[in-house]
């Protein structure tokens, strides 16, 4: 096996080209190292095009090589994409967050990957580059081929960054997970939401839940119910019921029964949407939304 560390995107693409399909991109290696390693690994964790968090033409641009620790601590992400900061803050342990990246989290394609769930709720688009140096964009939820299988071919494509629309003044987002322990514990259910208000009504909403399908899953029925009105106590009860009924969950011997997970889906959907609405209200009133 060969392992090359490079800080040049062109060189990383070259190594992949020359390895004729035997190469593979690696970032933090927290997922890849426990699986089988490809004969030629190209470590992209210090390629500048994959780093950095900045505002860029009305979008928030977040490098695929940004670690969970960096994302969780970033003032810009905390201000503009709180759901992502909250998700990254809860991944694994400090050791995992210090090296695991959000790009790796998405391409690893685990159905309940925390950062991926937040990114889908935020409406993030991925920017990818192929060996011919052509760039293309795809919505994060479109990057799932199957359970634990990404459409991104890491032997011939590099995920560069994520772009998401900067929130308006009336927006808020949130992420929640339910896990047996606070650290080193995979979530039984995780949920994220992004909400925009207009006057006394919810103008747009994205609510996402996992693990239900291979990709983080939108709660379309629940979203529809919330659109165009102001949620009262009774609405929140309906949110819980609708969210739990609109998805079909599976139980697992390792984690929990299907019935328990169904219950958690409803509760987390309600809580996360409520929190996103509260943040939107706060942000409208001039707070930082947190």
């Amino acid at each position, binding site marked *: 096996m060969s392992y090359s560390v490079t800080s040049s995107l062109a060189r990383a693409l070259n190594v992949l080209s020359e390895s004729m399909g035997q190469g593979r991109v690696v970032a933090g290696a*927290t997922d890849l190292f426990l699986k089988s*390693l490809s004969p030629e690994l190209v470590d992209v964790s210090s390629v500048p095009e994959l780093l950095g968090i900045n505002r860029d033409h009305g979008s928030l641009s977040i490098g695929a090589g940004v670690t969970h620790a960096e994302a969780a601590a970033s003032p810009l992400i905390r201000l503009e994409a709180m759901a992502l900061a909250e998700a990254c803050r809860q991944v694994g342990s400090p*050791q*995992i967050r*210090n*090296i695991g990246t959000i790009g790796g989290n998405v391409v690893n394609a685990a159905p309940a990957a925390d950062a991926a769930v937040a990114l889908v709720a935020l409406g993030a688009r991925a920017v990818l580059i192929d060996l011919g140096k052509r760039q293309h964009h795809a919505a994060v939820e479109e990057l799932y081929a199957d359970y634990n299988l990404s459409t991104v071919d890491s032997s011939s494509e590099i995920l560069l960054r994520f772009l998401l629309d900067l929130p308006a003044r009336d927006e808020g987002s949130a992420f929640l997970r339910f896990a047996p322990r606070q650290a080193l514990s995979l979530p039984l259910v995780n949920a994220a939401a992004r909400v925009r208000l207009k006057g006394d009504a919810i103008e747009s909403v994205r609510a996402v839940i996992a693990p239900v399908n291979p990709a983080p899953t939108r709660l379309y029925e629940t979203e529809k119910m919330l659109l165009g009105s102001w949620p009262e106590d009774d609405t929140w009860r309906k949110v819980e019921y609708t969210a739990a009924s609109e998805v079909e969950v599976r139980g697992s011997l390792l984690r929990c029964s299907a019935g328990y997970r169904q219950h958690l889906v409803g509760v987390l959907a309600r809580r996360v949407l409520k929190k996103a609405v509260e943040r939107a209200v706060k942000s409208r009133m001039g707070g930082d939304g947190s």
Partner: protein
Amino acid sequence: MKEQVISFELNREKVEICADPALSLLRLLRSRFNLIGTKEGCGRGDCGVCTVLLDGRAVNSCLIPAGKVEGRKVLTIEGLTREGLKKGAKVHPVQQAFIDKGAIQCGFCTPGMIMSAYALLRDKPFPSPEEVREAISGNLCRCSGYKQIEEAILEAAKAITEQEGKW
């Protein structure tokens, strides 16, 4: 497996070694550098006994391919002890605080705990108990119940700031 030359800084010294880049950093440290202070527990990121610092941040050395440390800085528990010796103490103040506070029982988790604690104190010299608990949330201890460990880290923070300039 094909070997390759890997150059990095280990405990503040430049080193170069010919090794399989797919070996874990943990194995590299233990079997090639004979630095056996770093322990192997689960081998999959779940216990933290293999914690070392990579460019100043706590990481699980069992999950790091050796090839990844090329050009970077690795600090192990042996490097920390050496810093203590250099300053005329027996060990580093974080290690001393663990001894003084009875935060070591079987000792298997201790090197990893101390590296996580040291990484915290480098960033936050005055951590709150909550920050201490978070910093060691990736380190399991099956003996102590964590209370003494938390106290030791808070004690170490005090000792280091009191002797400021020295450390």
